[in-house]
């Protein structure tokens, strides 16, 4: 039942994908990653895909990301935020311990406060996007604003999110440096 369409497109874009994998993985083993991508493509259910080239790049991007996350978890079990990471697949998760859940609750409260501080509309748009899984276009239609306005709200929220991650990460490595650097607010 396999139609070789996606594989053929992978072949055609082999050098571009290799370049991409090399850029995204810090030069480590792009050939190896391409093989992994190939296997994933072959195990996909047959069926037409609208933007096959973009689809392959997205798959390649996810592949690098998942691998980095797996490495990160192996190397830093005590980084609270990333230590909670249980893989990209939600079904493969193991239950967090009560202590981990407590830390997660405290951290989530801090993150939520940071998001709420950006204003009601930004917080609503971020949560619709991240928790409800709504697309940016869908949010634009629902809220009645332009797509680029949605992106601006999300840009703000993701900025706060990455800043908060930096800060929590720094805290977990050196608690005495709490809130002293590395998290200037968004100038706005």
């Amino acid at each position, binding site marked *: 039942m396999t139609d070789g369409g996606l594989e053929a497109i992978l072949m055609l874009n082999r050098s571009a994908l290799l370049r991409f994998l090399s850029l995204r993985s810090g030069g480590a083993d792009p050939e190896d990653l391409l093989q992994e991508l190939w296997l994933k493509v072959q195990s996909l259910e047959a069926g037409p895909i609208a933007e096959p080239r973009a689809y392959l790049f997205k798959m390649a991007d996810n592949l690098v990301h998942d691998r980095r996350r797996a490495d990160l978890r192996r190397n830093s079990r005590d980084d609270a*935020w990333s230590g909670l990471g249980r893989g990209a697949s939600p079904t493969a998760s193991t239950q967090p311990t009560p202590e981990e859940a407590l830390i997660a609750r405290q951290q989530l409260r801090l993150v939520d406060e940071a998001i709420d501080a950006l204003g009601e509309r930004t917080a609503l748009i971020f949560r619709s996007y991240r928790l*409800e899984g709504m697309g*940016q276009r869908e949010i634009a239609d629902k809220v009645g604003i332009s797509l680029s306005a949605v992106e601006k709200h999300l840009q703000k929220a993701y900025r706060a999110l990455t800043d908060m991650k930096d800060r929590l990460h720094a805290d977990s490595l050196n608690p005495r440096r709490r809130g002293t650097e590395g998290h200037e607010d968004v100038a706005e």
Partner: protein
Amino acid sequence: MSPSDDQMREAAIAWYLRLREPADADWDGFMAWLEADPRHDALYQEVADAHDGYGDLVEAVDAHRPSNDNVQTNPRRLKFFAGIVTAAAASVAGIVGYPMLTASPATYAVETQPGQHQTVRLDDGTRIELNGDTKIMLRKGDARFTSLDRGEATFTVVHDASDPFEVHVGADVYQDAGTVFDITRDNNGAVETAVSHGAVLYNPGSDAVRIEAGRVLRTDRGRATLASIDTATVGTWRDGRLIYKQAPIARIASDVSRNLGVPIRVSPDIAAQTFSGVVILGGDDSTILPRIGAILDISVAREADGWHMSSRARDSR
């Protein structure tokens, strides 16, 4: 952090957000950006990690939420399949039932809006999953009766040979024989019944045609035809996938319209053209319909109140 670092971080977030929207994804532009500065990749990765990290926090908190939690902290589940979930989320409010005064014994309708999905469980454990723009009738106190007035539903029946489950479609009766089956009734009255497990008896009192698993019965204006169907493709609309073998575009348009809740007009010259393959329904209509156009190799354009499918030749650019 220097201002240029700040700008780089903003660019990283912008790339991350844009690459998650399939319609806006410019992977070549992204590669050029990655090549422009060795720090770009790490910044992009940080955004991806923050995105995932937030999800991990929410999941970790949800996993340990006590069952008698107070209402202040409403549970947040991450949803991973945007388009499908939002369509289904519209229907969580429960069954829209209303009593019908004309029909007896007490019959009531369960109806979905276009784009809305709903699952009904009958007392005997039988499950009826309604696609969008669908209307079924049920009887109070009689879990073995259903009629399909409009649209599409998948029936997962708890079989009882002594009291078979029946679906009435117009004047026809479909009787289960241990069954999972899907019935579609389009706006012109054509009915398609596909069986994935067990068997269904068509008009047991008269025609008594047995539709086995892997078979599909199509009736249209008095003509009935039986054909083979891959059982794995029955009722896949429930996962947001529509699977076709030699299906006319008119049929595909009507299925997509029912699932998304948007009107779709099909030019007569392509209505009978056939397609085999999968149509995946992730996203909203403005992302799905252009995709379907590409898959079916037809032109799809937005109209005032919906969409129009026509032959690609007419808009050769």
